[in-house]
């Protein structure tokens, strides 16, 4: 967690308050809305009248077609009256579509910007992310905006308020991305986004209500919550998918600011970096048509990761990953494995490490029990892991139960045992157990 910043907190509150104010119309906007609603009602009345006329014309045409002998109808040209009525029908239909489109456009312009999001709170013998803390905890409040900016332009903003280890509230623009959609080929995004590797990092973002489990696998946690990979990146990302005869092929390609390790935590350098270094990566995924519950994929990324404290500890991060996901009405099975082949810079040796997890869940009505096993084997001679507070190896076994209270809220219970297997200051060797409860909602 970045050190809590009161100024960031105040700014974040101001931003949220401004957003809330935008969602509620000012008095003058209210008058404008009343006027537009009157015009909309008039348009709808006209649409209904035109619709009635269309039905009447259709009935007339149907009657005339039924009265005319079939053979004679095939041989003779359409009588002028029927042809004229067909033209009138087409004209009326066109007018109705135009009015409908115009009405929808006006309505769409005045829809405002829907504000949605997620929130979660919990209680347990430990904080799910920081085992040194015990008791009740606020997780996060996440606001999500995806404005319709035009036929091709897309936008996405995800603003997250989260409570850090010391109880301070931090504000992160977790995602801020603007993109241009190239028809069916894909979308080119620019901004800060979730790095497209594996499955979890782009399937589940900051809304805990949508995920089955109470928390992310520890090594895939966000940078300030114990993750060892750059979950967020700032740069350019092209993503799309194509349906082939065999199935659906997904593709991602990105070039982003190279990350750094600052204060023991990965920093995605969202304001740029001093040396212009980049991280590049990509992912291919495939969902067979004959087995559309299955998705498999491969990912890779490479970048020079700066150690902000010790420049002699820079690393060329090279990651290759495989993922498989089975998601059906009854069963959810997720598996990812990451292979690291990092190079110490400049001119140092290489180090190999692995990380992976397997999660199984069974959907039984409102209840979804799940189990997960996570394991990392991280070479501590690799400067990339040695520099991170969360760079120690571990394995964790967890059993959990999700209960859907209703469509928008879920209760999750998780019992887990974590074993740290590399002695570090932040995570000394040893084991600890978790008994955690989470209440997660969407709105």
């Amino acid at each position, binding site marked *: 967690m970045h050190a809590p910043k009161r100024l960031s907190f105040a700014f974040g509150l101001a931003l949220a308050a401004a957003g809330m104010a935008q969602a509620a119309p000012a008095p003058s906007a209210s008058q404008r809305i009343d006027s537009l609603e009157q015009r909309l009602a008039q348009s709808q009345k006209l649409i209904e009248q035109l619709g009635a006329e269309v039905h009447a014309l259709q009935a007339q045409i149907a009657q005339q077609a039924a009265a005319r002998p079939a053979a004679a109808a095939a041989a003779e040209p359409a009588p002028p009256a029927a042809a004229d009525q067909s033209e009138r029908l087409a004209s009326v239909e066109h007018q109705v579509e135009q009015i409908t489109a115009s009405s929808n456009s006006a309505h769409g312009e005045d829809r405002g910007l829907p504000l949605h999001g997620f929130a979660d709170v919990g209680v347990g013998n430990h904080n799910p992310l920081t085992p040194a803390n015990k008791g009740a905890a606020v997780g996060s409040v996440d606001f999500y905006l995806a404005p319709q900016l035009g036929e091709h332009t897309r936008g996405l903003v995800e603003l997250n308020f989260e409570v850090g280890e010391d109880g301070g509230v931090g504000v992160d623009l977790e995602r801020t991305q603007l993109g241009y959609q190239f028809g069916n080929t894909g979308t080119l995004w620019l901004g800060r986004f979730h790095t497209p590797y594996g499955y979890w990092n782009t399937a589940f973002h900051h809304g805990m209500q949508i995920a089955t489990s109470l928390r992310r696998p520890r090594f895939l946690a966000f940078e300030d919550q114990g993750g060892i990979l750059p979950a967020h990146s700032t740069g350019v990302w092209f993503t799309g998918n194509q349906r082939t005869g065999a199935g659906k092929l997904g593709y991602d390609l990105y070039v982003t600011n190279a990350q750094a390790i600052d204060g023991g935590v990965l920093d995605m350098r969202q304001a740029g970096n001093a040396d212009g270094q980049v991280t590049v990566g990509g992912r291919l995924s495939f969902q067979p048509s004959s087995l559309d519950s299955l998705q498999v994929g491969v990912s890779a990324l490479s970048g020079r990761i700066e150690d902000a404290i010790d420049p002699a500890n820079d690393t060329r991060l090279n990651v290759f990953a495989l993922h498989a996901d089975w998601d059906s009405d009854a069963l959810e099975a997720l598996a990812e494995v990451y292979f690291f082949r990092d190079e110490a810079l400049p001119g140092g040796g290489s180090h190999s490490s692995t990380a992976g997890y397997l999660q199984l869940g069974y959907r039984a009505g409102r209840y979804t029990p799940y189990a997960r096993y996570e394991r990392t084997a991280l070479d501590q001679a690799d400067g990339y892991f040695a520099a991170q507070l969360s760079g120690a190896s571990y394995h964790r076994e967890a059993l959990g139960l999700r209960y859907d*209270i209703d469509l928008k809220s879920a209760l999750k219970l998780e019992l887990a045992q974590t074993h740290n297997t590399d002695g570090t200051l932040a995570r000394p060797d040893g084991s600890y157990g978790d008994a955690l409860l989470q209440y997660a909602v969407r709105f």
Partner: protein
Amino acid sequence: MDMRAYAFGLVVLGFGFPAAAASAGPPMAPAATPPAASALASLPAHWLDDQGRPLDLRSLADRRLVMTMAYATCHRICPMTIHHLEALQQELDVAGEQATFVVVGFDPDSDDPAAWHQYRQDRGLNRPNWLFLTAHDAAQVRQFADRLGFEFWRYDEHVMHDERVVVLAPGGALQLSAGPGHVLHASDLSTGT
């Protein structure tokens, strides 16, 4: 506090809360019915069925339509809705009554005709009176949803949506709209409540 005591307390809380919630309060009432006239006429007309063939919704005007929205990769709410509709179909069969079930996709990019075709094959939803429709674009989906009171928003590839079934009487008038927690039965269609 001892971890075992914590775990015991959380288990009691975690299992006791749903039981208490289940026994508390009446089931949710159906949503208020929006204005009734010409509901079908107000909907976007041109769709694709799961064979990729054009379908004009207006051609169904003479039928009772049981309509809902779903997306193929939804594994929580949509299976529940489809299950309820299958049960309704069975009740109608017993009563000797007919209806056309129309499932409209939330996501035309992902839920294309091929996806819906696979979806209905996987679940055995192959009766000819069941239609799975794909819109031409997202705006058409939004227009359909707004007209019939379906609430949804996109969160990346996820669609956050409620559970709703709308019934249109033969002729296209809105007969009833059933929101979350209200499971439709054949008797509801007969009485219109």
